[in-house]
């Protein structure tokens, strides 16, 4: 057999059985897309972090807000713990739906959503009580830009979580079919990791 006869395939169903069904193998397509999107997000935050460290490295004087030092309590540390906890609750939801437990998945996703919203409220409150603004020195600029864009990403995550809760309420997920849950969870973990890097940079590296 030097060359096979032409193989007939349909438009939507991929390969016949003689070949491995290529589109089923490996990671689901939406997850590949999400991971690539996150790669671009890493570079986006990389650019913002580069701006931060560039300003930090060339700064003359005491690094930090112009008037008072940046306080880790009473807001920054608690909302950090809340956001990190939400990664765990998210993962409990993923494990639940992998077992096929829709009720537990919906419960844990809803808990994650609530924790994310609490984080956003805490961050907004923090903004309202901080004694400096975005135009107060280069620290104010990088502080509000980085935390602000992180907050925007948390907000995007809460939109995704809301959609998951709504779809879960209609019973749309199962042990076999829950790629949206996996995709949102990866995104949520990513947003969490960005916060850990940001929190460490802002409050510990100084």
């Amino acid at each position, binding site marked *: *057999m*030097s*060359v*096979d*006869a*032409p*193989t*007939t*395939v*349909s*438009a*939507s*169903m*991929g*390969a*016949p*059985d003689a*070949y*491995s069904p*290529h*589109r089923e193998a*490996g990671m689901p*397509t939406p997850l*590949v*897309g999400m991971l*690539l*999107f996150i*790669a*671009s*997000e890493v*570079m*986006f*935050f*990389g*650019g*913002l972090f*580069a*701006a931060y460290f*560039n*300003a930090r490295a*060339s*700064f*003359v*004087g005491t690094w930090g807000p112009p008037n008072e030092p940046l306080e880790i309590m009473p807001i920054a540390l608690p909302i950090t713990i809340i956001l990190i906890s939400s990664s765990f609750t998210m993962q409990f939801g993923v494990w639940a739906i992998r077992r096929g437990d829709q009720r537990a998945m919906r419960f844990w996703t809803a808990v994650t959503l609530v924790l994310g919203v609490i984080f956003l409220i805490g961050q907004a409150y923090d903004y309202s009580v901080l004694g400096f*603004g*975005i*135009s107060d*020195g*280069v*620290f*104010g*600029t*990088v502080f509000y*830009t980085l935390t602000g*864009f992180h907050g925007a990403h948390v907000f995007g995550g809460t939109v995704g979580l809301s959609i998951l809760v709504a779809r879960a309420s209609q019973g749309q997920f199962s042990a076999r079919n829950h790629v949206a849950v996996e995709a949102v969870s990866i995104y949520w973990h990513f947003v969490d990791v960005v916060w850990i890097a940001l929190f460490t940079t802002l409050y510990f590296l100084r």
Partner: protein
Amino acid sequence: MATTTLTPQAETYRRSWVLDWLTTVDHKKIGILYIVNSFLFFFAAGILALVIRSELAVPGLQFLDVKTYNQTFTMHGTIMIFLFVVPVLSGFANYVVPLQLGAPDMAFPRINALSFWLLPLGGGLIFTGYLFGGAAAEGWTGYVPLSTGQYASGAGTDLWLIGLALVGTASILGAVNFITTIFKMRAPGMTLFRMPIFAWTVLVTATLILLATPVLTAGLIALFIDRNYGGHFFDPNAGGNPILWQHLFWFFGHPEVYIVILPAMGVVSEILPVFSRKPLFGYRAFVYATVAIGLLSFSVWAHHMFTTGKVLLPFFAFMTTLIAIPTGVKMFNWMATMWRGSISLTTPMLFALGFLSMFLIGGISGVMLAQPPVDFHLQDTYFVVAHLHYVFFGGSVFGVFAASYFWFPKMTGRRLNEGLGKIQFWMMFIGFNLAFFPMHPLGISGMPRRIADYAPEPIWVFWNLVSTAGAFLIAASILPFLVNVVATLINGERVGDDPWEGNTLEWATSSPPPPYNFDRLPPVRSERPVFDLRHRHDAEHLAEDHVPLAPPADAEGNVTGQPGDGEATQ
């Protein structure tokens, strides 16, 4: 179920022609939308180029004031790079890559439509600066402090920033789509190392877009915050750093150069084998060279910043010079592909050869500029303008026209007129060299770029006039192209499904392809499945006739494997 053969009628329903194109998620229609949209921006930015060259035809200010001149060259560069060269190549990739992979569509068709529609939106926003007190005027690089609120207070720069952020987002989404498509949608048998080279170059390009563009977005946002919300990213008085903009811009900007050239290299690598009647020489070496260029592109950005005095000159000079090696490998492959081939000088082949020769000049002047002592002399002179036009125009744009002539029969079933095509090529080739080669001596003799006027030195007066004449010849060369496209669409020669005797899977379906692309796929056993299909009977006979010549390992006389094996044993 898996063997159902669909008919075109089964996939379409009746709706108006306009609504069909506005709402389409078919990669082929989106690809055509990309190409048409990009050409419209090409013509707009081309008119701006003529305005620049008219102003510079003779010394003195003719009909522009300095401010308008600044807006003109800024918009020319911005539109040409962000809204013509990058998207037009994305358009060809959109149309061709799923076909080359044997896929029914892109991985995310609706995101694909979003990627496209962000382009006219972003490009439109950039142009609306003209309505609000003047467009951006800092050059396509938007350097601070020129682009800060202090020196560019108008809305034009803000619209430029927003428009570019949208266009960048479009490219990022497109890149996610291309990479996912290439990794998840390949036909049975289409391994990565059997992919057409064009698909490979699109894969590497998409990776560069994915990782480089977000850094530009971060820079655009930082500048927007500085301009509108009192930020201090680039304000040295408050602890900021103006050089940061250059780092963020060029960390994107240099991979961008390869984003623009790699797909054009892919186009040329598809065309040269077809019209030399030989396989591409050194397929794997070519792939590795493409990947190497992609990797190196992230370590060379500061060669744009040698004269800032803030970068490590030896490192960036060395890394930049290294890029000449994989590029040289490609040059060697292309020439060896043509060597003793049966060359037919069709229009796409002419443009591919134009690419080879002009890109070579641009590459050599690039290596010159990569040397800090030379760069210190030539920074911001017309030599840089000459270099970048030899790469962008002599490289990418010639590649775009090669692709246009090569794949037009695929998209329409009709071949563009060869006579008009050759007229266009020679007008464009001569006009291009008249317009841009004089910029080398102009730059070496010290004429600065981005200045509306120049001293009436005899040598500057002469070369500028030549350059302006060349620019108008380029513009004139667009006319036969437009006539050709319109006439061919109305009454062109119908040439069947595979007029060029192509090698890759896009030629295995009808021209134009049905909405779902393929009724049947040939087996993919090499990087040239359609060649294999066309010559399989030859290969079978060859295998039978030459059993004694088969490798000794094949003692039982079973000649197995690929059609190429029979030839290889002779």
